[in-house]
């Protein structure tokens, strides 16, 4: 969308949030081949509210450290290709307000 520049970027938004990231990812793309061959839209890179999914030529980069644990990617992946678990107890996002 063209109005992106006008507002605050996702990087700026994510900067406001506290994360206590685990050393291991709680999110896994089950089969990258599916992303390459069957998923031209890579819609997870669009609807993820923290933009943690980024397509890098031949693989999906998963920046799990910034995950809000909302569950959208698990439900929204058109190929059910994302293994989604909760981060280890006490880890992950820490909301201070909302």
């Amino acid at each position, binding site marked *: *969308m063209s*109005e*992106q520049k*006008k*507002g*605050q970027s*996702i990087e*700026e*938004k*994510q900067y*406001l*949030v506290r994360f*206590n990231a685990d050393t291991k990812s709680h999110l896994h793309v089950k089969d990258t081949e599916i992303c390459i061959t069957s998923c031209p*839209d890579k*819609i997870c890179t*669009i*609807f993820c*509210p*923290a*933009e943690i999914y980024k397509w890098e030529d031949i693989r999906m980069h998963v920046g799990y450290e910034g995950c*809000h*644990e*909302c*569950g*959208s990617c*698990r*439900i*929204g992946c*058109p190929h*059910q290709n994302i293994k*989604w*678990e*909760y*981060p*280890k*107890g*006490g880890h*992950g*996002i*820490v*909301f*201070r*307000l*909302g």
Partner: protein
Amino acid sequence: MSEKFDCIVVGAGPAGISCAFELAKGGAQVLLIERGEYPGSKNVMGGVLYRKMMEDIIPEFYKEAPLERPIVEQRFMMMDKESAVTFGYKGMEWGQEPYNNFTVLRAKFDQWFAKKAVEQGAILVNETVVLECIIEDGKVVGVRTDRPGGEVYADVVILADGVNSLLAQSLGFHKEYRTDEVALATMEVLKLDTKVIEDRFNLEPNQGCTIELFGDATKGILGTGFLYTNKDSLSIGVGTLLSGLVKHKIKPYELLEYVKNHPMIRPYIQGSESQEYLAHLIPEGGYRSMGRIVGNGVIVIGDASQLVNAIHREGSNLAMTSGRLAAETVLLAKEADDFSEGMLDRYRVELMKGFVGQDMKKYKNSTHHFDKFPQYFEQYIPMMNKAASQMFTVDGSSKWQKQKKIWNDLGSAKEKMKLAKDMYRAWRVIK
């Protein structure tokens, strides 16, 4: 730790805490397990907490709970790109006891509420994920956690693990949700001076206002936006069905920026400073998406059982009532020493008899209906704006001429027929 409790409650949100509070108060030994650093650290809502259902649990809670503002005005904006038709209700009776509802910040409120449950005798364990239910002879008898040796047993396990209830799913109580059964909401808390908030929203001190945003706030996709007043901050957010974001390829945070920069909204938030950005799913499939909520030794409450009334932006109150009713049933089951599905089914019966079940049933077709017929948000809200603009713009033409023009703008006889049919259909699904 292979301890045994009367009851284990998984998840310290409004449903789980209500349930743990009532159980502990009734003399049961209850373990409340929370995966976050503290209750509230994973929890998100726009911010409206309803007084009645909370008072059913803690009378006069508003005298000590960390609340933001009692709401005295609720506005609804039907937005087009550069205009809005607004209506609402403001009443002084909402500004005094017993109050109607309050804005809250969940991280603060949930911590306080959990503390009250602990004071009743519930044991709260934070930073612990429940990985699965332990099943023996077709009956849930405990949970396995991610703590070393972390098996805990109980007569009943209450699943209050929220919209992503992997536990209820793994029991086969419901299938994975579809993208049109959940809404993805993003919100921000914006710091703004108390006095400025009161001036901008026409409020006295300790009064609050909520504004619900329809139409262009979600670019015509099924969903809503909101702008709520806290003490010295505003909560602004927007939620749409996940299916809508997928279909229109919209980034949720860009939609949020769009709302923040909308000419109808921008003046309210000008000069504020972002304090936090949050994203969460809302279960909006309604009655038809509710799976099983009772089994042998297990009960599902709150978001985990899809208890949200999306039309009226209610959820935390349904959660609290479900938690309270579950506790009532567990206490009776304890007395009878019977934790079978047949006994625990009393919870489902009571839930469906009361306002929760009645409202879930009343709106059972609403999400699906408004999703299937996008013209309500895409066409009729802009049409409403255009009609208001024409009627209220004084340009020398007579009111009869104006009415005629508005009537003609509704389109051909066939299009008018369709409009009438749509209005009737909308009435049918919400009546």
